């Protein structure tokens, strides 16, 4: 997955487990950028009575590097707290929740937004209400209009923010990919296929929810003059010490916040970083990513593809055998793509190797977006930032399979399959559509209707 349950330790702490980051010029408000960080993976919509919520003791952050040095120049911090109206009922709600102020809603969650920049800390909003989880037609009627839309708040600097449950927008065939790297559309060619015929992909995240923190900010608020390319990533941090109470009192949290999860480019920690290093990677800042550059330059998956699909990737196999560093992947994931590689495009941030989503904010939204982003000729899509609908699985599979290596070595002959490899999914495989407005991810599935009868 993009980064769902990607590391052993963070997989045990789902409220702090970042799953996806998106950064794009807002298509309906192109003077703004939208930054989204998702947490709490693979939520079954019926997961009550304690429906999902953000961690009250987790500090969530979205960082923006405006100067290409792998450090945050601007950070938006999000701190949550929960109000329990009636502790003497087991119910999340004691009647229909018809508004954010409904007395029937027993467990509300609020949050503050603080911007940290070179001029200090600025609280942009506090006491902001999250919407409830989408429970079902009796508990949360008219969810989108009555509960989700009113949970979009305007901050004191004019930005807009939303924090709450959304439909998972990342589509991926997990069941196949984690079954020995299988890709259903090509599984007839897999070395372990044993007679399996090619088949369409299956979206494993269909009908699942996630929790999103989304903020829409004027471009001028997150860029430096003359530097339209920004780096974006999210982190979740916990205080160093947690002492469990033995007498029913609140557990004690103490000490400085310590980063336990981070995410910039999709699938980096998931696929490129080895399992014994993943949780350490989560604690590191992008500025220190040179220590992981070897895993990008020599991705394990590039060596596995020719083994799993014998004879399908002969040129990739030769590239791996020659131990040729993948300068294409280093550019896409660690530095940005310099001018002259893709005509008319750059999202280079400089020589510092740092895993960040790099968004060139001077590129306007596409009138006809291509889910393959830059590989599909659409410079407004991944790896120029990331939109909610971008097919990052296919893009990165193709890149790792060698499709983008020809951009840095004109003598390299790309394997025919490298331009076709995919898990076989598109946004048509979602269970609910994206929104065409903030916060762009779809209305969360409710637990009454999903799983379907």
């Amino acid at each position, binding site marked *: 997955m993009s980064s769902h349950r990607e590391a052993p330790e963070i997989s045990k702490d789902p409220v702090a487990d970042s799953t996806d980051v998106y950064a794009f010029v807002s298509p309906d408000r192109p003077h703004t950028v939208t930054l989204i960080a998702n947490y709490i993976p693979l939520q079954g919509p019926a997961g009550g009575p304690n429906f999902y919520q953000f961690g009250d003791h987790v500090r969530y952050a979205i960082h923006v590097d405006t100067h290409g040095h792998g450090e945050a120049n601007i950070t938006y911090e999000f701190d949550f707290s929960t109000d329990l109206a009636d502790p003497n009922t087991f119910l999340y709600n004691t009647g229909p929740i018809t508004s954010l102020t409904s007395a029937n809603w027993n467990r509300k969650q609020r949050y503050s937004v603080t911007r940290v920049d070179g001029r200090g800390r600025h609280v942009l909003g506090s006491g902001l209400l999250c919407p409830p989880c989408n429970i079902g037609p009796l508990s949360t009627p008219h969810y989108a209009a009555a509960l989700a839309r009113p949970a979009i708040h305007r901050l004191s600097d004019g930005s807009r923010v939303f924090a709450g449950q959304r439909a998972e927008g990342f589509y991926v065939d997990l069941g196949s990919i984690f079954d020995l790297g299988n890709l259903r559309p090509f599984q007839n060619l897999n070395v372990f296929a044993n007679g399996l015929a090619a088949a369409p992909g299956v979206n494993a995240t269909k009908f699942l929810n996630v929790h999103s923190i989304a903020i829409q900010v004027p471009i001028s608020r997150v860029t430096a003059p003359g530097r339209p390319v920004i780096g974006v990533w999210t982190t979740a941090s916990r*205080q*160093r*010490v947690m*002492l469990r109470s*033995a007498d029913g009192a609140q557990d*004690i949290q*103490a*000490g*400085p916040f310590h980063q336990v999860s981070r995410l910039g480019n999709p699938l980096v920690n998931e696929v490129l970083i080895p399992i014994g290093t993943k949780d350490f990677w989560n604690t590191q800042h992008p500025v220190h990513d040179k220590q992981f550059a070897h895993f990008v330059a020599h991705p394990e998956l590039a060596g596995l593809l020719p083994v799993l699909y014998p004879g399908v990737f002969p040129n990739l196999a030769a590239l791996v055998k020659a131990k040729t560093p993948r300068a294409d992947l280093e550019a896409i994931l660690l530095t940005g793509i310099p001018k002259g590689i893709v005509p008319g495009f750059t999202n280079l941030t400089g020589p510092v190797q740092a895993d960040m989503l790099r968004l060139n904010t001077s590129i306007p939204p596409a009138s006809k977006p291509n889910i393959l982003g830059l590989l599909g000729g659409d410079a407004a899509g991944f790896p120029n930032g990331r939109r909610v609908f971008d097919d990052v699985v296919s893009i990165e599979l193709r890149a790792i399979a060698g499709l983008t290596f020809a951009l840095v070595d004109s003598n390299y002959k790309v394997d025919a399959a490298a331009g076709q490899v995919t898990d076989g999914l598109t946004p048509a495989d979602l269970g609910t559509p994206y929104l065409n407005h903030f916060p762009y991810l779809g209305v969360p599935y409710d637990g009454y209707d999903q799983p379907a009868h």
Partner: protein
Amino acid sequence: MPDLDHSGVAPKHASKQIGDSEPAAPSRRSVLRVAAGAGAAGIAATALSGVVGGMAAQASALKGTRPLSPEEASGTDPLIVHVRDAAAGEIDLFRGTTQTRLHDRDLAARLVRASQ
């Protein structure tokens, strides 16, 4: 100075005031035990909720021996002490969102003894 066993982490007999007598040298056994744990998690964090004033007094004793001012003593955040490396006398104090590292072999030794 409250008893150390208020938080259930130390026996009653260990509850003498910290800082008003010369510490006994830690036993070789206890030092080895703590040192072996240092670097990963160290020994289990020693929770001294309720003895904030006393620990702060010890911390201030590093600079002198003056008693706590009312302002210093009025802190309500719990203080959690981690003897990170008893042999080296490395002690981390966690309070609020801060972490303070002390280097005090005597104090570390007394905390280890109190925990036994």
